[in-house]
């Protein structure tokens, strides 16, 4: 790329930053105050952490689509994953293997805790799923877990479970009047059910994004 084009791009980027800065320094007072509305309805949401309430109740529909995005990314990665030229993987250090064996069960425990605490404090399905996925990656790096070329039926079911449970709950409560309108008394339980399914599926999906991309042993 020529110097002139590069200079133009830098100028464009700097101009955008300047415009953004100017716009931010001259903002009106917002006409709508959502934090107050969230606080007012928190008692009806089924959880007492406001971010979880927004994620899994007030704007749960965003989260549902986002789970689909994550699964879709894995489907895209799987479509690309071809058995690469078999490359002899260096055997993992025994210390790493021992450590991974030791830490992995602990990580599952932490994931369970994060899932449970999400209703009251920072935590929830995504954080728990990320820890699960990290355990999977660790086991893979230690050579204790094989890479997947094509996941089998059971694994595909596990990957899809979170989204399927979410969709099923979303339409099961249509009788209340609209999509994802939980009956107030059951909201907490339904959110925990959705989050439990999501934890498993998100953990598998995130791990799969890594495991499906690595070399397959002969």
């Amino acid at each position, binding site marked *: 790329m020529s110097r002139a084009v590069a200079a133009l791009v830098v100028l*464009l980027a700097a101009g955008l930053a300047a415009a953004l800065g100017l716009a931010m320094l001259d903002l009106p007072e917002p006409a709508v105050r959502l934090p107050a509305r969230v606080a007012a309805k928190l008692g009806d949401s089924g959880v007492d952490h406001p*971010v979880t309430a927004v994620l899994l109740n007030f704007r749960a529909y965003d989260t549902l689509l986002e789970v689909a995005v994550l699964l879709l990314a894995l489907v895209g990665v799987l479509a690309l994953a071809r058995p690469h030229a078999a490359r002899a993987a260096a055997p993992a250090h025994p210390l790493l293997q021992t450590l991974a064996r030791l830490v992995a069960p602990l990580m599952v425990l932490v994931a369970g805790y994060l899932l449970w605490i999400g209703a009251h404090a920072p935590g929830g399905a995504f954080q728990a799923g990320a820890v699960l996925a990290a355990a999977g990656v660790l086991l893979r790096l230690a050579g204790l877990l094989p890479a997947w070329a094509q996941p089998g039926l059971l694994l595909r079911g596990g990957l899809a479970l979170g989204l399927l449970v979410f969709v099923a709950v979303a339409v099961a409560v249509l009788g209340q009047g609209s999509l994802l309108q939980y009956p107030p008394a059951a909201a907490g339980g339904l959110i925990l059910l959705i989050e439990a399914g999501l934890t498993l599926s998100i953990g598998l999906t995130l791990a799969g994004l890594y495991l499906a991309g690595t070399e397959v042993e002969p």
Partner: protein
Amino acid sequence: MSVGLLYALAGAALVAIGLAGLLLLPQLLRKILAFNILGSGAFLILVGLGQRDGGIDPVPQAMVLTGIVVAIAATALALALARQLLDLSGRMRLPEDGPDAGAADD
């Protein structure tokens, strides 16, 4: 100036850096990183502006959590594609022909 606004201004700088990187850097891994910097800038602006009067606003925080997961998904797909391109062509960059260069080839 509130802390929230400071975050938002830092976000604007990140957006500019990410935009320039995405357009200028030829190496795919750097392009993908640049996209992530751009995204982080946008997230900072979203959260920062929402909390510029000092209070905590859970709505943009939840939106950013959604956005982060979406960005992870997009990054994973981009990395898988880049990896595939590396396997197929031996190069980690897009060919440099401009728009419509391939018009008359077969």
